[in-house]
């Protein structure tokens, strides 16, 4: 039986992981809620963020990479939206899903061609290497930084959505885009922007996840699947649903490692299935246009 300290340390791990998962999922759910598309390429954008950071960190350092990589990924997102995704608006959601599936497939292969098949481990930046004494246990400094950064970025997203007038337009666009357009807002530009922001959020998650998970071409799959589950758990397009869903996934994965280490990959899917039996639209989900 694991001791109390084990529980505590795995619990903290779970929260750290949960914040990272929430950050991964927030861009994904934003695109789904506001534009109404499933972006299968989210995982590849996450991986690109990590790989850009891997390349940039040597010359520019951690902080510069943390800013520049997501911007690059956001730019790539905007290009993808302008060239391809926007042609799918108004069609069956399946087409956009398949389009981004194709993008994810070739994107992963491109990463393999540019950076090689093998993975690379990335050291945590020097100022957070090693561990910190929390009084009752030692804990990795980088994991704490990761948690703080994830929470901070999530807070910025919340500020944008709740406290800025453009955020209000974005949220309104999710409800009734025709009305928002009729009121004189440029819906087309808004969608491009949301796609760009969502991509940049995937990228920034990749940058801070890289020292924890190391970089490899298939790493996008480790991001896209939790994002799916969290959206199902928390409810489509819901900010707080995503945070709660992310923490639930992080905690359940970490705690499962103690009891059934081999089944820890499985536990988040079981969690999603159980939650759906009681909350058909996820914990914070409201009736969505996506169900039609």
């Amino acid at each position, binding site marked *: 039986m694991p001791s109390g300290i084990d529980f505590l340390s795995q619990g903290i791990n779970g929260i750290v992981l949960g914040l990272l998962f929430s950050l991964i999922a927030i861009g994904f759910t934003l695109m789904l809620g506001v534009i109404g598309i499933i972006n299968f390429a989210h995982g590849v954008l996450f991986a690109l963020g990590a790989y850009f950071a891997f390349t940039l960190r040597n010359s520019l350092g951690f902080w510069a990479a943390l800013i520049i990589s997501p911007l690059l990924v956001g730019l790539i997102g905007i290009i993808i939206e302008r060239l391809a995704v926007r042609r799918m608006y108004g069609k069956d959601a399946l087409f956009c899903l398949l*389009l981004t599936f194709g993008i994810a497939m070739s994107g992963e292969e491109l990463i393999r061609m540019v950076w090689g098949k093998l993975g690379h481990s990335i050291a945590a930046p020097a100022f957070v290497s090693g561990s910190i004494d929390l009084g009752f246990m030692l804990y990795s400094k980088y994991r704490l930084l990761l948690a703080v950064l994830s929470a901070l970025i999530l807070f910025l997203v919340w500020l944008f959505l709740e406290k800025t007038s453009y955020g209000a337009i974005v949220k309104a666009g999710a409800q009734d885009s025709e009305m928002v357009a009729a009121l004189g807002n440029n819906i087309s530009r808004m969608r491009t922007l949301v796609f760009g922001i969502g991509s940049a959020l995937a990228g920034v998650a990749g940058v801070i996840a890289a020292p924890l998970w190391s970089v490899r071409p298939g790493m996008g799959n480790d991001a896209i699947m939790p994002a799916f589950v969290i959206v199902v758990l928390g409810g489509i397009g819901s900010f707080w649903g995503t945070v709660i869903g992310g923490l639930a996934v992080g905690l359940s994965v970490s705690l499962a490692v103690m009891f059934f280490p081999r089944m820890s990959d499985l536990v988040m899917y079981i969690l999603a299935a159980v939650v759906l039996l009681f909350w058909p639209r996820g914990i914070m989900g409201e009736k969505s246009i996506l169900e039609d």
Partner: protein
Amino acid sequence: MRRFLKLPFVWMFLFFLVLPYLLPLIKGYTALASEILIYAMFALGFNLLLSYTGLASFGHAAFFGIGAYAMALTQLKLSDDLWLGLLMGMVAAGFFAGIVGAIICRKRGIYFSLLTLAFSQMFFFIAFRWDEVTGGETGLTGLRRPPLRLPGLPAVSLTEPMAFYLFALAVFMVVMILIWRLVHSPFGSVLQSIKQNEVRAKYLGYNTVFYKWVSFTISGIISGLAGAMFLLQQDAVFPTYLNWTESGNVVMVTIMGGGVVNFFGPILGAGIFVILQNAIGAYTEHWLLILGLIFIAIIMVIPEGILGLFKRTKTVQQ
């Protein structure tokens, strides 16, 4: 009799009879032809759900994989019989499709797709981690093709590629005709009405959730049969059969061929997919890049698929 022997079926049968002799022209081989048939069966079963019921499953590789594992486990633990193995593949896939379907058939649209994906990942990780039964990451290998036994006839060995191909062709024809009969039956009409307008179908008194569940389960059974056949073809099964990328491939193959507008679309898609995979794979190890780009191009340029170009909509929308 004429209702069963529609002309396209005769032409298709004749085409597939000569296919193994045509493939060498493009550096193919007989086993590749068998793969096309098996993949076409899988895609036809999937399309029953996608184009006739209007449900986009993104987790169908799970049922394909379950069928393959069930066949393998039957052979390893129970009996070497060909028919029993195929039956177990269908039963196992149908059983799990029935359970998953019961949970998710009330869901609609993207939500349905997300859930099929989540459930298929569950099966993937079970296959990946449950070493004692599924062999874990390395899968189950070294299986063999049992001989074909028919009552009153001597057993026929299927180890020769051509013998197995003809067996696969027979199974394929039966499955295709059954699906054709199904979608052109009153049951099929109800499914299409659900696709067109579920609320209206419900008001007409149809238990639409039940119909969707039956369609999901049948589709799972056919996928399981295809998986079991694929096991015979490969003599091995790996967890990657259940991977979500495989689920995505079958959706893409169905759309690419034009399954949404034509009953035979998935067969064309499967043929192109298997041949392309083989052809590009021979030139570059980065064939996924090319395949991905082809997928992107098809969705952007001809979203209704290749047969959609000919607009033969009569088979789906009567």
